[in-house]
């Protein structure tokens, strides 16, 4: 398996940390459109923030790379172009390979003969181009000094390959076979399988064959015994069919070897072009924040489940109105409680609060700066959301049942350390019954180590939730304050 070097993830990629529907609910798609106009860049950015690092080290790994790119902003563009070229070589190689196989399948034996030769030439040439490109990348990265672990790793990895003696030897073999012709290459090593079939047929250099077609002279007994052990034999004609099968098989195997090495290197690096798109979009985001003139910070990251922010702005409002018109939030959610309910009337800013917390959490966990004077957060292993929606035209379930079904689907995804954002759930039924049912679910979340933030106007919840749940209340001027507690335990 190829050891993949990543500029996004220090550890193994954590899949599906944020669902696409959550990005949509938090309006991150709209936010993204404000600072990144390129469709490819923004798609890569969105995909990346769906797979967030879940550990403190993971967040810092990405953040320091971003800081390096902020320092060497021209390097990012050139690096991206090189990796784009690498991806293009890969696509060309796969396309040509498919084309040769297609022609081989369509044609007869002659086509197979010629196709094998073309495949070998093309594979050798591809590997040569790739090795030369890695050499150029080595020259580019060799000129810079980086503070981030990720870019230092990349620099060292490319150096190890481009500067190796084996690479020079490989380049020499590529040159030998890039203009391959059949003439003079009918020497093979055959290995039989356990079932007595020809399992492997490989091309060997002609100087490995020691043919002796001369008639044997009379020799001494001991000399004869020795020769008997090591001598070869003249072979009766093997027939055209077997000869062609051996030739095609050996050439295709050699082409496959060249291809394997090329694919190994492609697999090792091809994803980096797409990863760099994230940083391209991230730089645009950083520049846009600078232009808005609001205070930004790289948040403090710590394990433990807490969240706090000072003068944090809702990014969507910031981008769509003037910063002066946006009321910043300052809020602390204790790591031990890990659960908060914000009560409030309609249009009092509940959804904006939930969006602010969700967006800040995602951006901070993605390693990006945030529009706040100060922020501390803890990475979550999964970010899920539920937003009350209109009834869907679905058979066999009313609105409340549809809500319960969505909750049920959410349960199947839950892992400890998840953060769940809930916007006005269970309000499509009697409030008393809904509040009771919801509080059982919230209690289950808390008992399972899942942090949750709920916004609701269902005050009946206060009767059911535990005492350690933090209760907040919206106040005039879109402010947030502590709410009175009627909790049961």
């Amino acid at each position: 398996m190829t050891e993949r070097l990543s500029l996004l993830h220090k550890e193994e990629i954590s899949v599906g940390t944020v669902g696409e529907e959550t990005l949509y609910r938090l309006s991150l798609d709209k936010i993204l459109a404000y600072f990144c106009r390129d469709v490819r860049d923004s798609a890569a950015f969105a995909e990346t923030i769906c797979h967030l690092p879940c550990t403190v080290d993971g967040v810092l790994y990405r953040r320091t790379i971003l800081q390096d790119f902020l320092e060497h902003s021209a390097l990012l563009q050139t690096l991206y172009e090189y990796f784009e070229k690498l991806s293009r070589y890969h696509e060309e190689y796969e396309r040509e390979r498919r084309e040769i196989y297609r022609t081989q399948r369509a044609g007869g034996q002659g086509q197979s003969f010629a196709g094998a030769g073309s495949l070998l030439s093309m594979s050798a040439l591809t590997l040569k181009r790739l090795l030369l490109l890695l050499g150029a990348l080595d020259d580019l990265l060799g000129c810079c000094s980086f503070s981030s672990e990720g870019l230092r790793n990349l620099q060292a990895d490319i150096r190890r390959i481009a500067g190796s003696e084996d690479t020079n030897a490989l380049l020499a073999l590529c040159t030998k076979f890039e203009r391959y012709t059949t003439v003079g290459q009918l020497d093979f090593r055959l290995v039989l399988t356990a079932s007595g079939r020809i399992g492997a047929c490989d091309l060997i250099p002609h100087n490995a064959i020691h043919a002796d077609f001369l008639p044997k002279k009379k020799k001494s007994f001991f000399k004869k015994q020795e020769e008997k052990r090591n001598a070869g034999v003249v072979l009766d004609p093997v027939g055209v069919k077997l000869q062609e099968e051996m030739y095609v098989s050996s050439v295709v195997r050699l082409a496959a070897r060249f291809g394997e090495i090329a694919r190994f290197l492609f697999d090792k690096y091809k994803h980096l072009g797409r990863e760099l798109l994230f940083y391209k979009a991230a730089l645009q985001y950083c520049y846009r924040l600078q232009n808005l003139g609001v205070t930004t910070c790289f948040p403090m990251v710590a394990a433990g489940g807490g969240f706090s922010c000072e003068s944090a702005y809702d990014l969507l409002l910031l981008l769509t109105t003037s910063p002066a018109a946006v009321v910043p939030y300052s809020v602390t959610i204790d790591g031990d409680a890990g659960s908060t309910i914000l009560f409030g009337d309609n249009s009092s800013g509940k959804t904006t609060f939930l969006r602010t917390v969700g967006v800040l959490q995602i951006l901070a966990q993605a390693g990006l700066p945030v529009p706040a004077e100060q922020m501390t957060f803890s990475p979550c292993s999964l970010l899920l959301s539920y937003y009350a929606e209109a009834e869907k035209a679905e058979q066999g379930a009313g609105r409340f049942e549809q809500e319960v079904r969505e909750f049920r689907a959410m349960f199947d995804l839950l892992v400890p350390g998840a953060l769940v954002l809930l916007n006005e759930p269970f309000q499509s039924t009697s409030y008393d019954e809904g509040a009771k049912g919801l509080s059982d679910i919230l209690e289950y979340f808390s008992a399972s180590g899942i942090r949750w933030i709920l916004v609701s106007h269902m005050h009946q919840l206060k009767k059911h939730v535990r005492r350690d749940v933090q209760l907040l209340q919206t106040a005039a001027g879109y402010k947030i304050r502590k709410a009175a507690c009627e909790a049961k335990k």
Partner: protein
Amino acid sequence: MNKPSFLYAAGKQRADTALVEDLHLGDILPKKILPILTRPCDKQTILYRQNFFRAMEADAFYSHTVKLLNALRALASERYHWSEAELHIPRSLLHLNLLRLYLDVVRLLCAFPQENEITAAITTYWGDDAHRTLYAKIEQAACAAEPLAKRISTFDVSLMDRAWMQPDDGGRSYGEMLAAYATGLGMPSAPGKEQGVCLNLSMSSALSVMYREELAALDARLAPFASEMLCEPIGYAEELDFYVQMHKFMRAIEQKGIHTCFPAVSDHRQYRAEQVYDPYLLQKQAEVVPNDIAFDEGEPFFFLIGANSGGKTTYLRGAALNLVFALGGCKMLAARASVYCFDRICTHFPKDERFEQMGRLEEEKRRFDEIVCAGVRDSFVFLNEAYSGANDTVGAALALKTAETLRDKQMFGLFVTHFQEVCRKGIPTLQAMVDGENNRLYKVQRLHSGASSYVEDILKKYDLDADSLRARGNVHD
């Protein structure tokens, strides 16, 4: 000691051929495992098979089983090739390979990573003195033959002006050079793909001349082991295939988010299951509504009525297929289930043949008579739209008579019918539900069932009520 089977005991009796066809079993599972699956088993066999399936849920046990199955298949395949081989070199190498594969199979048979009743019996049999002695002899012969075979198997050929064959001198091929450089770059070396081209007479003869002494020594080592003695375990292949195919099928179902369970085996005559899915329908569409099943000694028979295309046949098929699975020792597509070991499962579905000897109705009556005449009390009969060719009055009367017959014979049954009259005769009846606007809900409920709290009901349905949450336990990694 008799050779033990992975199936423990075969099912009680061969299933009715109509069962496979009516329930579309051949469309959802490989046909080769159906003869095993459709024979209802006794309680002990079901429990033993369940334990084997449970063990397969551990990756190590599953891969061991698959490895064994592949080794058994390879043994069977090589035995065939050996019997067909004509050239000396392939025949000798195949013979040695049969020895190797036999050793692999026996080693795997004796080393299951987890013990259960079935593996314990298998391990005991294959580890007894006679088998151990044979194993040791074969191992010794194979070890001695190995270097000879290795020497014979690698050689160089030049097909330039005149053809020449020579022993391999140990030099590197171009492919090996590439592999060595690639390893230097940190790339793991992978063996090239095997080709599998047959040797021809010319090469085999040249090899026989070049390696005359080695070949004679090889043949002498292999001669004492006839292929027949190496083929004793081959019959296990189809038994293990049953387990592997059923396991894969259930895993695919589980990956769709459908719950499965091993049913409890009840000593009381009953068939109860919660949230049962029809596997046939699941293959065709993603959204399938699960239903509950509850038959017991008190209510062993139900009519099922409801609107056309309302899910009646799906309910019946789901119930029947899951009963087949349960009685074959497999998992069911249900949240929870408890099943009695019925001796027989019968289906009575409409047939599309031309009824040349008698009318459709007569033919249907004859088929039903055949089912009841067998007189197997512990039978479960699934009837789908039987007597639909008759008019409403006659059809309903026949349906009621059928219910009466089954009750007299103390058989269990589910009868899907469109004769609405049957529900007025006091016989327990299920109904495929529709909503106020006549939309199909695909939910089957007892006629005149009581109502309960709306919110609580729905939460309970999705296991999100307080009790279910408590029972669920905390979220784990």
